């Protein structure tokens, strides 16, 4: 699976206003809703579920990266949104460091394989220091989009 298959590029937040996890999640979910990637009706539901999931175990996996995610019956296909924070968000990450890259993901309930494929794609790229650096340096959602599409086409990135 490619980034272009599930990332809602229009919803990218180039600089998160939030400095804490829950506000960052709300910001990202709202941005998805604004961009039309999510219906307003379920916005609060989704945000609450994602926070609940984070409380069970943080998806801040270290290296300044967090992948908050849930499965939700209201979405038909996987939808993701990227948020960057130069100041850093406290995500209760495994390595206790602030998070600078957030990729929030909502997957349908009945397609676990697709969810795994999206995760595979995200981690294959995020584990590369070069990719993380490039993503953090993006100024503007257009640059984020260009980088992710380039990554889709060039496995070495």
């Amino acid at each position, binding site marked *: 699976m490619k980034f272009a298959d599930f990332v809602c590029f229009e919803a990218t937040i180039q600089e998160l206003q939030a400095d804490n996890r829950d506000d960052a999640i709300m910001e990202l979910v709202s941005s998805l809703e604004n961009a039309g990637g999510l219906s307003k009706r379920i916005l609060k539901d989704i945000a609450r579920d994602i926070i609940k999931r984070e409380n069970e*175990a943080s998806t801040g996996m270290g290296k300044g990266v967090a992948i908050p995610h849930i499965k939700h019956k209201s979405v038909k296909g996987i939808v993701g949104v990227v948020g960057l924070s130069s100041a850093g968000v406290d995500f209760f990450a495994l390595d206790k460091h602030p998070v600078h890259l957030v990729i929030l993901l909502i997957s349908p309930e009945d397609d676990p394989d697709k969810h795994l*494929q999206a*995760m595979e794609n995200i981690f294959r790229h995020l584990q590369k220091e070069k990719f993380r650096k490039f993503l953090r340096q993006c100024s503007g959602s257009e640059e984020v989009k260009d980088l992710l599409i380039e990554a889709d086409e060039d496995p070495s990135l």
Partner: protein
Amino acid sequence: MNLDKQYIGTKAGKETLEKVVHEMEVEIKNSDGLHMRPAMQFVDIANKFDSEITVSNAQTNVDGKSIMQISMLAATYGSKLKIRAEGPDAQEAINALRELVEEKHFDEPMPGR
């Protein structure tokens, strides 16, 4: 996360250069596959052992102690993974990981149950 490399070297010394390596194929039995929560359980157990642990599918080999790398396997229900452990506690590591994947199936539901 691989703090064990040197340990193996010193422990084996010059007299006993034998490397303890154990391998086993396991099958993913929970419906949702190796998503993040099971992946974390796997990495938590792997990190309890000194042995180096690698996990592979048909395409890639990854570090069994890294959450990002294990998540990269995208192992779906029914897929098979090869777990390889090398080091002083290789056998114990393999046993514990096999139990987690195949017997406990990460404490998650299996299809049709």
